[in-house]
């Protein structure tokens, strides 16, 4: 198959494998989640303690100390809700990215010694945080619908989550493939995951940025998904159409590109790991 043909076909082959192995994948995700909770008494508590503490600190610093004000639908000050609406989707993305990039190295044994469909490892890493942090996002959405104001826009969240999934998978396909050849990439990704949060308006509204930075924000591929989550959860709107197009565009672009690179090189992984 020549490259152009493969470029168009690879994303579909990868999605086909995802559908074909869906039961195995669900089982792997379930085991991953259970594995984290099993064996320790605190179990579930430990898993949520770190992000919850983090949120508490952010809320205290930004809402109480800095008096951040975000005006949302139906309320005077929505800053706490605003921070959470951006932070948890970001955590879903960040955990998927850091875990996913390492997944090939972590499972070198599996890849070298069995005929394992490698892409499942990536899907598992990206999907798992959807279950844990996704519950919190769903909780926020429910709170929004029941206690603040009903909004049809909130119901479009699964669609955004799906686009975010494609985007994250695509990026992870790229990073994980690169990491097979250059392990140093993993260090870069760790740095990006811890500082990247400040490159997106999560702890502050985009309107607080200088004008130039606001314009540059359109070049940030992670901006559209976080922005859309915030719009839907906090502001009862879908936001600017251009951002939605960007979200769709980045997601498809990354997924197609990532799938292509990954699919083209995945047979070599066993030799290089």
């Amino acid at each position, binding site marked *: 198959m020549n490259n152009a043909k493969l470029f168009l076909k690879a994303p579909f082959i990868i999605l086909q494998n995802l559908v074909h192995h869906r039961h195995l994948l669900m089982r792997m995700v379930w085991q991953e989640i259970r594995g984290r909770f099993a064996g320790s008494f605190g179990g579930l508590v430990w898993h949520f303690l770190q992000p919850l503490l983090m949120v508490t600190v952010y809320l205290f610093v930004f809402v109480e100390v800095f008096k951040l004000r975000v005006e949302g639908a139906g309320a005077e000050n929505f800053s706490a809700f605003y921070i959470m609406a951006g932070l948890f989707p970001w955590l879903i993305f960040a955990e998927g990215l850091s875990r996913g990039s390492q997944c090939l190295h972590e499972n070198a*044994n599996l890849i*070298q010694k069995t005929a394992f469909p490698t892409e499942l490892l990536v899907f598992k890493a990206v999907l798992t945080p959807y279950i844990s942090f996704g519950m919190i996002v769903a909780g926020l959405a429910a709170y929004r619908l029941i206690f603040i104001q009903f909004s049809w826009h909130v119901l479009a969240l699964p669609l955004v989550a799906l686009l975010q999934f494609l985007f994250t998978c695509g990026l992870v396909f790229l990073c994980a493939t690169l990491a097979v050849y250059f392990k140093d990439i993993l260090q870069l990704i760790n740095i990006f995951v811890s500082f990247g949060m400040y490159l997106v308006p999560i702890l502050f509204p985009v309107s607080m940025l200088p004008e130039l930075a606001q314009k540059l924000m359109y070049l940030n591929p992670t901006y559209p998904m976080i922005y859309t989550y915030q719009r839907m959860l906090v502001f009862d709107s879908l936001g600017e159409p251009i951002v939605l197009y960007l979200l769709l565009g980045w997601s498809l672009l990354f997924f197609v590109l990532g799938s292509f690179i990954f699919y083209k090189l995945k047979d070599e992984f066993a030799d290089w790991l």
Partner: protein
Amino acid sequence: MIAIRAENISKHYRIYASPMERLKEIVLRRPFHKVFPALDEINFEILRGEAVGIIGENGAGKSTLLKILSRTLKPTSGNLEINGRCAALLELGAGFNPELNGEENIYLNAYLLGLTKNEIDERKKDIIAFSELQDFISQPVKTYSSGMYVRLAFSIATSVNPDILIIDEALAVGDQRFQKKCVDRMVSFRENGKTILFCSHSMYLVQTLCKRAIWIDKGRIKMTGEADDVTRAYEDWSMEKGKQYETESQNLLKRFEDTPPPCRVLSIKLEDQNGHELSKITRAFDTIRLVMEIQAIHDADVHFGFAIFRTDELLCFCSLTTFDGLPPIHLKEGEKCLISLALDGVSLVDGTYKVMGGIADEHGLHVHHASYSAPFLVRYREKHGIGVVTWPRKWSFD
């Protein structure tokens, strides 16, 4: 019907002296690696229902070939055609998640082999029963012994009813009884017209289980044909090579040098009844003599013993002077003597063996010193069956 067809399969590994060389190669676009051909131009066809053994030395490329056939590795070049569902048992514990329990691992493995949830639910009981791990199945696999790993892996791989079964050496672990159970299951597989590819160092297993064998040496096919012929040729060849094998017994001697024994075995050989040295036994039920030359370093009362091992370390025969009720023999300092044991009616079957001769203390308990002979071949002109021993025999039909 062809089950597996391999055409010009090659696997070349690039060897880099350091990761920097790899980077240099990408940046400068000039090769900075050495090529190591793990497999070179392998061609063969395996028909459906055939059991084929793959033999060869360690590092000859057997495992690489099996990994390519099971689609774990991609060949550097060549075409591979595989017809049918293929289950592979490659390396110990590969494909298991050590943190999960046995049952979860059954699901993971069986899903990978293409079973649906219902099919697994159905077969789970059989898998657990065959593996005899009922009491441990809810324990994490990391607590399993290597034998238990193999039992579970073998049970899963064979329970999913594959068309092609690829087994790499895995049976070497596990106790004799379970090995037998595995061999039985493989035999029934073969009888049901499934294809088996089996890689082993046990020439005996290859001969009994497989009709055909492929001998791989240094990444190339050295010989392919009837299992009997190929295993024999391989044994002859490795015996030729095994002349260097004596270094092994030299090592053994060295071990004894740390605490000098009161007497030592200088050499061991095999003779026919006329006293001519033998390296090959060609007539069944002949008389042979095991001879060792020994030297006493101090005065000592000692017992002597001989043992015959098959090359896979199976003890075929062992006798000590104590067993036969003889009194210890007194050796004087510096004395050299020849000890020989005549064996009437040799009844070993075809294969490669070696003799061990040893000197034990006056109670026959502590071994002062022992040494091996060079390997010798048993290769009868006429067929004498398989197994461990053969007998003079007569059929009758009443």
